[in-house]
Structure formats: C-alpha cells, structure tokens
C-alpha cells in the first residue's frame, strides 16, 4: 500500500517549546567491528544528563541501519564512535546511506581516535565535529546545542517514498512536542495498536524482536518504544532500539524511541495521534512497548486496541501485577523464559487469575502463552495471535468504539 502523502512538514527549527520542551535528539552508534564502547556509553549518559534524548544504537551497526535510525528517530544529530582506524572508509559509507534514507542533512559528529590529518577529509563528508580523546562531554553537549541543524534541503531530490517517510517521522516529532500543525489527509486510517507491557527486566524488547523476525510477509509494522524521561534534566537514554538491530534495515519496519515524561503512566499520551500518522503512512500495526512500571496501566488500556502483559517466572511478577490490577486489562499474557522452572506453574496461576476475575458476560478467554528465546519455542503461537487473532474487533472493551479522546 503506497504511503499517504500528507502536507509536507518543515523540520522543526529551532526546537521550540509548545507547552513541553523539545530536547534535541541524537543517535549514537558504533559502525565497524570494534567493540570498545566505554566512550560512547559515557557520552550517552552525559548527553542524557545534559537534556538530550539519546538513542543508543549499539555495536556493529551497518551504515544502512544507522541511516534508518536517523530517519525513523527524526534525529538532529548522529554521533559515530570510531576507534578502529577505518573512519575514512566508514564515514563516507554512512554519509551515502543517510542520503538514501533522505537524511543527508543530519549533523554528523565523530568521537574516538581520529588523527588531525584526517579531519578535513571527514568534514567533506558532512562531519561537523570531531571529538578526540579527552574531550569533555559537557563540551560536546554545548557544541551540539550551539549548532542548529540545517533545513531539509536534501529531501527535495529524494524519491517520493523516502520523502513521505521523513515527513511522517517529523510529524511524529511534532505530535510528541505537543504541536499538531499537520493537516490530516483525510483517509482516516489508524494503525491498530497493541501495547506490550511488563516489568523492566521482563524482556519486552527481545520479545518484540523475535515476534517481528518471522512476521507474515508484507506486514508493515511500527514500533514505539517508550523509556522514561528524566524529570530533572528532561533527557533520556533510549536503548530499546538495540534489540531490534538484527531486523534492520527494513523499510517495512519503523522503530521510534519515545521519552515519556514521568507521570504519564508508562506510555506516551499522544499515542492516539501517532497511530493516525502511522496508519496514514501505511503502517497497519503499531506495537507500543511501554515503560512497564506496572502502575496505572489504565492509560494503555484506553489508548491501545489490545494489551499484552509480559511476565517472567521466578521474579514474583505475577503477584505484584495481580495487586496492581494489571492482569485485569490484559488481552494476552506472555510468560518469557519458559525454559526456567516455575514457568508452567506461573502460567497456570496467571491463567486462572486473568480468567476468573472477569465476570462480565461475553468475556473472552485471555490466553496465556509461554515462550522461550533460548529454545526458540512458542513464538509461532505469539505471532499468530499478534498478526491474526488480535486483528478481529473485540467486544465493548475496544477503545476505538468509545475512544475517550475523541
């Protein structure tokens, strides 16, 4: 299905506050074989503390996957950590991939081991800062804040599909910022939404990765991964993307990391509008990974079509969650690491809990699935549920029918 073309959206420059401040977004990644990540991890934390939204891409990234990250995350900056002496090979490849994805205008900065004699060559490929060993993170943050990224000149020559994706990505940023200046193009498509929730250690991201790996052909899926925003600095370290690394680059997947302010109950409040933007761009299904702090998931019940709760055996999860009433909102429960002892028992307990506590007529049985990544078991059933079963419209619990936001 061709993505809808909406009214072109100017990149938000400079980022202005519209009721909520909009922090600069930077993708940090390592490209190449080198795995030394002390520097990049320190920079990630430091920029977070300086108020940035940092999307940490991890190790061994391919240039094309990095480019997709910059596009889908609507990043203002790309920071590459290069200590392997191969910067003169890697940077041009990354620059080319960025152009392919319509992000040729993103500001590239490089950290690591770059001899002085090579800096000029890097600048020719669009690098706007080289931060060698001993550079303070404060200095990096200031340098990035001081430079305003260029306007989107490069997307004019890009193919329509590429432009449309960029525009959609920017639309999401506008929505996240509380601005919605975009004009709905009226086709009214709204991406179906499944929320994946569970305590932080339950492995939601890895589950998502496996789920998406074997998905039916042609399915275009968006993932919104929520992580908490610091209430003090406004910064965030968004690391969920790493778990999707093996799936990308893939134009049928759109992965966006969202920093969710504390008090939002684990999920972005603008989810509804984002679903519309994604739906109009041809992403029929959106998977939202919540922060999963386990409190008040009423929000997610309102904003998503279906809610999946992920638990792990041996962590006392089920008891805590029962207390929080979370199991009442689940449409599906997934027990991860089902190879661990206690999994069957947990599954049985949970099944009882979720199905006995619903006394309404027309109650649909809530399945409890067990999956094991180490044994690669149970994922087919999960995929079936996500891509087929969950797509039927359900009874009155469907928020679309009586959405509280409209």
């Amino acid at each position, binding site marked *: 299905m061709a993505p809808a073309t909406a009214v072109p959206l100017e990149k938000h420059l400079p980022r202005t506050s519209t009721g909520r401040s909009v922090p600069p977004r930077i993708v940090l990644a390592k490209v*190449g074989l080198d*795995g*030394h990540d*002390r520097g990049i991890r*320190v920079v990630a934390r*430091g920029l977070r503390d300086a108020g940035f939204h940092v999307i940490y891409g991890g190790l061994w990234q391919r240039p094309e996957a990095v480019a997709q990250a910059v596009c889908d995350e609507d990043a203002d900056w790309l920071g590459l950590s290069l200590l392997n002496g191969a910067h*003169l090979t890697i940077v041009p490849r990354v620059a080319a991939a960025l152009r392919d994805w319509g992000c040729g205008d993103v500001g590239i900065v490089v950290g690591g081991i770059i*001899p002085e004699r090579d800096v000029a060559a890097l600048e020719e490929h669009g690098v706007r800062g080289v931060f060698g060993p001993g550079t303070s993170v404060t200095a990096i943050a200031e340098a990035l804040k001081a430079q305003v990224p260029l306007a989107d000149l490069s997307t004019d020559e890009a193919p329509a599909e590429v432009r449309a994706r960029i525009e959609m990505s920017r639309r999401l940023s506008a929505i996240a910022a509380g601005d919605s200046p975009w004009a709905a193009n009226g086709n009214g498509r709204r991406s179906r939404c499944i929320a994946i929730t569970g305590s932080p250690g339950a492995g939601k991201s890895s589950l998502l990765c496996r789920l998406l790996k074997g998905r039916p052909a042609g399915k275009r899926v968006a993932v919104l991964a929520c992580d908490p925003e610091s209430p003090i600095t406004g910064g965030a370290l968004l690391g969920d993307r790493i778990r999707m*690394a093996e799936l990308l680059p893939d134009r049928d997947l759109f992965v966006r990391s969202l920093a969710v302010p504390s008090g939002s109950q684990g999920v972005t409040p603008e989810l509804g509008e984002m679903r519309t933007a994604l739906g109009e761009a041809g992403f029929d299904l959106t998977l939202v990974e919540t922060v999963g702090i386990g409190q008040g998931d009423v929000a997610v019940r309102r904003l998503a079509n279906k809610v999946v709760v992920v638990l792990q055996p041996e962590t006392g999860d089920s008891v805590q969650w029962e207390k929080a009433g979370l199991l009442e909102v689940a449409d599906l429960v997934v027990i991860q690491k089902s190879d661990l002892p206690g999994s069957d028992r947990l599954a049985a307990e949970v099944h009882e809990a979720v199905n006995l506590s619903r006394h309404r007529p027309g109650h649909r049985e809530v399945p409890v699935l067990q999956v094991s990544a180490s044994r690669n078991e149970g994922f087919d059933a999960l995929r079936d549920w996500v891509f087929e079963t969950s797509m039927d419209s359900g009874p009155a619990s469907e928020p679309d029918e009586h959405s509280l936001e409209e």
Partner: protein
Amino acid sequence: MTPATLDNRRTGPTLPTATPSGLSTPADTLAIPFAEAIGQPGTFPFTRGIHPGMYRDRLWTMRQFAGFGTPRQTNERFHFLLSKGQTGLSTAFDLPTLMGLDSDDPRSCGEVGQLGVAVDTIDDMQRLFEGIPLEEVSVSMTINAPAAILMAFFLAAARESGCDWTRLRGTIQNDILKEFHAQNEIVFPPEPSVRLVVDLIEFCTTQVPQWNTVSISGYHIREAGSTALQELAFTLADGRHYVEETLRRGCAIDTFAPRLSFFFNAHNNLFEEIAKYRAARRLWAEMMRDEFGARDPASWKLRFHAQTAGCTLQDRQPEVNLVRVAYQALAAVLGGCQSLHTNSMDETLALPSEHAVTLALRTQQVLAHETGVAEAVDPVGGSFLVESLTSAMHDQARQYFRQIEDRGGMLAAIDSGFFRREIAEAAYAEQRLFEHGERVIVGVNRFEEPEEPPIELLRIDPAVESEQVESLRRIKRDRSGADVERALDRVRQAARSPNENVFPALLEAATARATVGEIMDALADEFTRYALDRE
C-alpha cells in the same frame, strides 16, 4: 597544591583503610593475621610474591604487544623488538581476525591490518613467526573468540616446521568471559564460548604442557572503566568459572591449574595497584587450595602479565605519556608481575612507531637495571598502607564473589547485565570527576599547552588489505577444496557433540588451509551467533 588523596571514593568504593589525613599507621594492620594473610614470598598465600627470590633470580619478561599489517610486516617488527632487548613476543591481531572474519569478508573492509596483524590461514601464522625459534622464544597471542582456531594454526604451523610441541612456551588469551563483561569481541553465545575455552585448556594441558592456556584478564575490564576492585573481583571470578568448567569436564585440578595465567592493568594509583596484585595472589591461592582442593603449590600461584593502562594515555603533550607509563610500570613491578608491556607514547592516536616502542622498552630496562627495585623482594610489603589496602581489597573482592553467587553464578550474572552495569556506572562516575575538575589529567584539564607540535605517527598502508586479500585468494586457489570441506564437516561434527574436544578437527582444518572465517562459520552452524541485545 592539592595533596594526592588515597581516598578511593573517586574511583570506586571507599576502602576502609583510607584516612582523611592520608596517613596509615600500625593500627591499620594490627588485625591482619600475618602468616595467614601475608606470609613470605614463595609461600602460601603468596601475597608477597610467587617466588622467594622474585626478580633477583629472574627478571620479569619484557613483552611488548605488537602487530599490524601483513604477517610479514609484523614479523619484521618482532625481529626489531627482539633486537632491542625484548625477551618475549606478544601478538596483536586485527579486528577482522579478532572477530573471526577473513580479510576478504565484506565486513572486514577498511579494517584489515589496521589495529593488528591479519591472519587468515596457517600460512599466515608461519610467515608471522618466520626466523623465530619457537622452542626458545615464548610467544603470547591476544585472541579470544577464535582463540582455539588460532591456537590450532600455531600448533599446526609449529609441527610443520618441525617443532616439538612439548617445548613450546607461551600464552593464548582465550578469555571469553571478559569479552562479555567489557571488550565485546564476541561471536558465539556464552555457553559454547566457554566450551571452546575449556577444549583448549583440556587439549593443551596434555599436548603442549608448557603453554599457558588462558590469560584471565582484568586489563580490559579496567579499560572499560571499572574500578581497581571490580577489575580484581571480576577477573578472579572469571578464573573461578573456568576452573569449575574444566573440573566438570573431568580434568584434575593439578593438571591444568598451574597453566592458568592472568593479565592485569597497571593503572595510575600506585599503591592501590600494588595492593590489587597482592590481593589477587592471596585470593587465588585461597581459592585453589581451600575451595578447589588443589595440592600442587604450582596450582596456587597466580602468575600475571601486566600492561600499563591504555586508557590513561593522552593525545595532548604525548611525551608526558612516557612519564605516566614509567610510574605505571613501577607499580606493576613493585606488585610482582611476571611479564610486562609498557605502552608507547604515541598510542593514543596510532600504533607505536619504532622510536616510541623503543623508548617504551627502555622504560622497562631502566626500571630493571638502574633503579634497584629488582634487587628487593616485595619491597613495599610491611607498609601500613599497602598491607591494609591489600587486606581490604581482598575482603571486598569476596563481597563481589557473593553478589555474583546471589545472582545465580557467572553466566546468570552476565545475562542479567550485572557486570556491564557496574562497569558503566564506574566509567561514568570517573568521567564526572574529570568534568568537574576533580580528576586532574595533566595537559588536558590542567597544565595545558596552547600550541602543540605534531608528532610522527605510524601510518598503516591501506594497500595492506589488497595484499592480504590477494594472498588469501592464492591460498584458496591452491588448496584442495575437498580436503577443506571434509575438515569443516569434521569441525561441525565435533562441535555438535558436547563431549568431544574440537581440537583434532581444528588441527585438520588448519592443515587443509581452511580459513579462520570458514572454520568460524562451521562452528557457528552448531553454536549460533550471539546477538548483542542489551545496552
């Protein structure tokens, strides 16, 4: 002037012996049971050193890490270093080799020969050590995920040159656990990775009896930003895991423990480093004798190589690095290392030039022959400060051992991200100290120079890649494809059965001129590849 503080709060936990005044007294050591905790050099628990005479009888090995470009180029550097008085060899491999990729693999593009020597086949291994009498010169190889393969290449090459395996001396790093903690040179998931480590230990214990089968490393953990205490505790915990796994394999402890060796960082804080090495010896001795029941004193002795801290080198005023390295080397020697590498002053930005590496070697030679420290055995032993620091680090390391146990042991702790989190937090805390000016780095945030003349840096000729790729092409053309296929099938078969040691199959593959990448792929067919999936 700010007095240097011995308060360890800046790099990690506060040690109980730290006093605000910086002065240690007899009161700090009263409670330490001398015989049990310190003893004499050469006697259990070896806190003071593993030999009674230490350097009086034999100096530490001066072993400069080297490698770049093609095997021929590295061979030239090896000969150069030996001519300058180096007493052992240490091999640095390039990133593709470290990650188990061939020089002609698309993922290797731009990285061949850049940070170390490119080795694809047994022929490269032969060229690497051409003209070097392997029965006389000890050789170290720094390689982890593909260690078993490179070891097989080395042994097969040695055999082809007529060397007797029982006379080969050296070390292979082969420490995959620290890759999961810190350095990330990972290819397979934890369990099969550890299996390969144990296969090598088992094979070489009987076949290459003078070979150090693992170099259980703290260096990289420290480079990733850990504290000295974490370096100590995590390294010893890794050692414990290898011992447990090798025992489970059915090997008797006294057959293999004497050939397990260690590798520590030599960092800035002089006395903390010395205490760390002494605590390490004590912890290992206690673990081997009391926990694992080893009877042979050779099993109790922790032997270690040290390298001065790469992460402390700076690109401003690089000659100041010479000074840093000298002090760090002093710490390693006062701490009783068996082997030492001193970094070169230009290594922040490039691999060492001949001039720089010569100076690094001279640093060790001055230390050995002019300062007199080699004449005394454990000269700082008895210092109120050093003994109390040693004892404290020993006790606190044990607390870390308990934390690891509480998390379900080594592999479960790795899976939970425990080590990575600890290290990342320590690294970040260190960075904040630097940013706030509390950690002074001379030439960088104090005592800076406005203008600095550039220094000569080693350039790796990019033609290295095409040369190596061409050489590989010729080998592939000339070898028997059928032999290689058969050998790779044997590798897969061996990998598939958990009770078989893969070495015989690896040796066969090596001899057939299979490449590192081909053999890794065969292993990956059985082991699967590890997806790094956490922050």
